[in-house]
């Protein structure tokens, strides 16, 4: 195990040092890698561990972004505080959705559609609220300062997004090791059986969705102060929800490193293919490529890329488990 921790420590140090050598643009790519990894991780808490698929997670991202911005613009509240309020609002919405879904026994496809419907309804309602900019969206003022969560260069954004991602991994790790985590996995594997064994599935489902929504909303605050423009369609739309789930699925669902790995694969891929194909006459090719890669990964690596990476790295990082046989596979992947 020590080798594994050593490896992670080295990786951490390298990533921490990157802003010393990289320019704004490449840092920007890393910011997006961390951002989507974080959001993917938040989604993973619900879907990866309890198995309830949310295809409307953009809802919480949007709520976080809008709430933070609303508090900042109207009450001068720093986004550093506003984002936690946004988190609570998102949790409340998540709990309401969860109540309908879990109390009324919506499973599988029905739950998916419920989450889509919630996100779409919120999108439409926000589109009609003048206080939130309605269809025009909100343009944030750019006034760089730490208190405002706004900065000139990408270096602070880099460290903040990196911090988000690392904290999310620690949180998920903690959950995974706790009773809560074990119950969540039990629900994923067989909800009826878990219930029969006396697990209060409703309670743990609700906890999972609340945590997941809360975490996602924090990312919304980051997004708002990084992009400076909020629009209901881009914040609550299904395209964002889909973008958000791609990374954990490609990386490996229900694992700590899956969303991160997926983000390290997909974000640069979309960036590079766009940069390379953004010539006249090839419009759209990069999205085709993106789609094809996503299909191939799911078809040929259904448990996510993480499984293969773990297999590859195991002999180096964990010689003891590799010698003992296959036991390490699962333990490390999850």
């Amino acid at each position: 195990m020590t080798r594994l921790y050593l490896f992670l420590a080295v990786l951490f140090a390298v990533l921490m040092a990157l802003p010393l050598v990289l320019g704004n643009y490449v840092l920007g790519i890393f910011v997006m890698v961390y951002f989507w990894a974080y959001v993917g991780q938040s989604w993973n808490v619900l879907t990866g561990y309890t198995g309830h698929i949310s295809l409307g997670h953009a809802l919480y991202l949007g709520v976080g972004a809008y709430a933070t911005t609303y508090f900042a613009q109207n009450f001068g509240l720093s986004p550093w505080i506003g984002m936690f309020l946004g988190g609570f609002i998102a949790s409340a919405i998540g709990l309401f959705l969860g109540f309908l879904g879990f109390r009324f026994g919506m499973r599988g496809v029905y739950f998916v559609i419920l989450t889509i419907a919630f996100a779409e309804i919120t999108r439409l309602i926000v589109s009609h609220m003048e206080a939130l900019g309605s269809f025009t969206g909100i343009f944030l003022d750019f006034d760089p300062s730490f208190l405002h969560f706004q900065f000139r260069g990408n270096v602070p954004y880099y460290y903040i997004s990196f911090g988000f991602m690392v904290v999310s991994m620690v949180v998920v790790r903690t959950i995974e090791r706790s009773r809560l985590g074990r119950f969540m996995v039990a629900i994923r594997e067989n909800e009826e059986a878990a219930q029969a064994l006396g697990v209060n599935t409703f309670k743990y489902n609700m906890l999972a969705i609340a945590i997941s929504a809360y975490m996602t909303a924090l990312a919304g605050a980051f997004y708002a102060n990084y992009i400076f423009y909020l629009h209901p369609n881009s914040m609550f739309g299904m395209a964002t929800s889909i973008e958000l789930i791609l990374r954990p699925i490609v990386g490996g669902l229900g694992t700590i490193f899956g969303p991160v790995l997926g983000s390290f694969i997909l974000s640069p891929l979309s960036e590079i293919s766009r940069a390379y194909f953004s010539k006249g006459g090839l419009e759209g090719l990069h999205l085709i490529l993106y789609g094809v890669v996503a299909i191939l990964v799911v078809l040929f690596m259904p448990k996510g890329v993480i499984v293969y990476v773990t297999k590859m790295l195991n002999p180096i990082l964990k010689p003891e488990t590799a010698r003992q046989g296959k036991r390490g596979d699962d333990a490390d992947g999850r």
Partner: protein
Amino acid sequence: MDPHYLLQLAIQGILLGGLYGLIAVGLSLIFGVMGIINFAHGQMMVMGMYVSYWIFVLLGIDPYLSLIVVAAVIFVLGYLVQATVVNRILDYPEAMQVLPLVAVGLVLENTALLLWGPDYRSPQTALSLETLWIGPVMIDVSRLIAFVLAILITTGIFVFLKKTRTGKRIRAASDNRMGAILVGINVNRINNASFGLGAAATGAAGALLLPLMPLSPHMGHDFTLTAFIVVILGGMGNLIGALAGGLILGVAESLSALFLPATLKQVVSFSILIIIMLFRPQGLFAGKK
């Protein structure tokens, strides 16, 4: 309130609802047989529109006449998607089934963009501006034809499933996959055929829509959502329910214009959806498939 206005809205809703129904029938069929949601459904419909468009522009054949050809082409498309992608993911957990089909939609949408560009295309077909008048109430001829054909096609699919051998196999596979395998049905081929059939239905709906609305690569997504709602209304896997669900949604959306702006139309549909899922998750027309 002008009573003619009310009547006008209702008629438009019913006519459009027929088309919604046809689109949703395909989705419902695919779900019924394989338990999979086709997230690329709208994009497949758009492909149907493009095929129909090019036949019209290059050969001058009216969309209503090329309907069969369009359906055949989209059948092949659906068959291929099933054979290459969907058959491999049938045993995956649900979360993993979502992504490949979303990605298929992405690929289809951007292939259309790459090949035919982003322009809105709205060819004027022979009947696209024709109207019938019953007193002060207008009936759009192309909408009426689309409606009638949509009903016919749906009935056709229904009869096909009831009466033919392949249809019965499809229903068998839909009822009990393992059982179907045990009695010697080649389930993979049945799956391919039913995905193809579902796609063909939505492709045909695309051809019927061509005279009605401008075509562009990015319009698929909205139709996918509409089809979801209709399918839930009618009950997953219930074909006649899908048709009825389409009519209900069409009328509800249309009449919502009385008290809501067009931008909130979808709130009505989604609210209906949530209420149905809460209190009647088996759909309004639970019963035989």
